[in-house]
C-alpha cells in the first residue's frame, strides 16, 4: 500500500478536530452543571432526570441523529426559530458540533457525577459551616477534589465526539469540506473501494485518540499527585 499525501484532502481532519474540540468545551460546562445539579437533587424525579441525561449513551446514534433532525429541521421547534432569524444548522458545520456534543455529553455527565458523589459529604458540610458561599465551595473544594474525574470525563467526551459517525451523518450529512468528518470519510472511502485512503484516516484517528488519551492520563496522574499527595514530596 502506498499513499500520495499530496492527493489527500485533509479537510475531514480539520472538521473532526473542530467538532470534537467545540463539543468537548460545550459538554465540559454542561456536563459539570448537570452533574452538580443531579448529585445535589434529592427529589423523586432524580431517576427520570438521570435517565434522560444518560439516554444518548444507550440510544443508537442514528436515533439521536433522527431526533436532532426533527428538532432542528425546517418544521422542528428549534428549526422554525432558526429559520425565523434567518439561519439553519442542518447540513452545516455547527450540525457536526451539535451531534458530537449530544453523543459526548453522557460520558462527561456520568463521570463527573460519580466523582462528585465520591467526595466525603462531611468535607462539604464542613465547608458550609465555615460561612463560605456555595460558589466558593464548588470552585475551591468540589472541583479540585473531583478533578481526576473531571479530566477523565473530558478525555472520554473528546474521544467520543471525535469518533461519532451516525448522529453526525444524519444531521450534518457528508458534504466534503463542510461536514465530512474522519469517521464518515473512512466509511465512504471503504465503500468506494479506496482502502488506502480509509486506512490513512483510520491510522490518523487512532494516533490522535491515543495521543490525547495518553497525555491526559499523565497530566491527570500528575495533578492527582500534586493535589492529594502534595505533602509526600
Amino acid at each position, binding site marked *: 500500500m502506498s499513499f500520495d499525501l499530496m492527493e489527500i484532502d485533509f479537510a475531514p481532519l480539520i472538521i473532526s478536530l473542530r467538532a470534537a474540540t467545540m463539543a468537548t468545551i460545550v459538554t465540559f460546562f454542561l456536563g459539570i452543571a448537570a452533574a452538580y445539579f443531579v448529585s445535589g437533587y434529592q427529589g423523586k424525579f432524580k431517576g427520570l432526570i438521570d435517565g434522560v441525561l444518560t439516554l444518548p449513551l444507550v440510544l443508537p446514534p442514528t436515533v439521536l441523529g433522527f431526533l436532532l433532525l426533527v428538532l432542528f429541521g425546517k418544521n422542528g421547534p428549534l428549526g422554525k426559530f432558526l429559520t425565523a432569524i434567518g439561519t439553519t444548522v442542518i447540513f452545516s458545520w455547527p450540525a457536526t458540533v451539535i451531534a458530537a456534543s449530544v453523543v459526548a455529553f453522557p460520558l462527561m455527565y456520568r463521570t463527573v457525577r460519580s466523582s462528585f458523589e465520591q467526595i*466525603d459529604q*462531611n*468535607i462539604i*458540610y*464542613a*465547608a*458550609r*459551616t*465555615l*460561612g*463560605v*458561599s456555595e460558589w466558593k465551595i464548588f470552585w*475551591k*473544594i468540589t472541583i*479540585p*477534589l473531583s478533578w481526576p474525574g473531571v479530566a477523565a470525563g473530558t478525555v472520554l467526551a473528546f474521544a467520543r465526539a471525535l469518533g461519532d459517525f451516525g448522529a453526525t451523518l444524519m444531521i450534518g450529512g457528508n458534504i466534503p469540506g463542510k461536514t465530512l468528518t474522519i469517521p464518515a470519510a473512512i466509511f465512504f472511502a471503504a465503500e468506494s473501494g479506496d482502502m488506502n485512503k480509509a486506512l490513512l484516516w483510520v491510522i490518523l484517528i487512532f494516533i490522535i485518540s491515543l495521543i490525547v488519551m495518553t497525555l491526559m492520563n499523565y497530566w491527570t496522574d500528575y495533578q492527582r499527585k500534586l*493535589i*492529594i*499527595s*502534595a*505533602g*509526600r514530596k
Partner: protein
Amino acid sequence: MLKAHFEKKLPSFDLEADISLSNGILALVGPSGAGKTTILQCIAGLQTPSQGEIKINDKAVFSSEQGINVPIRNRRIGYVFQDYALFPHMTVEKNVMYGMPKKDNSPNKVLTVSNVLEMLKIEHLRQRYPNQISGGEKQRVSLARALMTEPELLLLDEPLSALDQDTRKTLQQELLRLQAQWRIPFILVTHDPQEAEMLGDQIIKLDRGKQETIKMSDKFNETLRKIK
C-alpha cells in the same frame, strides 16, 4: 446562648430536643443511632427540623412557626467532625484560613491564624498537608479551623473517639481550656459516659430520640434562675 426546642421525624423514631445552654459544655451522650448527631446537624442547619425553634443569642436561626431557616453559612456555628473533614488538598494554614471572615466584618480584629495555631500548639504544622499529620493533630487543625470563623457556638461531633487513649486525655484537657478561654457554649457529642462526666457542665442522655437531663452544673442553674 443557645435555646433549642424542636422535633425531627426520623425513619425509626421521632427525635425530640429541648436544649438550653448559656455557657460551658453540654455533653450529649447515648448509644449509636440515638439521634445525637441529628441534633447537632439540626442546630448547625445541615438538617431541617420537622418543627420547633432554635435561637442563638436570642436570634432565631430556625422557627417553623415564623418560617425562619437561616442558611448554615450565616448561623456562626463552628462544627468539628469525628473524621476531622479537613480539606486534603490544602495545607494546614489554608485549611484554617478557609472560613476566616474578612477583616472588615470581623468583630474580633486581633484574631489571626498565628494566634489560633499557637493556641492549639500546631504552629509548626502550617505548611503540612492533612495526610502528613497525626489524628490528634488533625483534630487540633479541625478545632482551629472552626474557631477561626469566630463562632457563637461550637458543636463537636465525637471529636475524640478516633484517637488513642493518651491523645484523647490531652485533647480533653485542651477542650476544657479552650472553652474557658473562648467563653462560648460547646455541645459535645460522645458515646463515652466517662468523657461526658469529665467534660460536661450539663449532660443530656439520649435514647431513641428521647432525652433525659442527668447533670446540671451550678453555673447553669444560676443562669437559668436569672433567665426565669
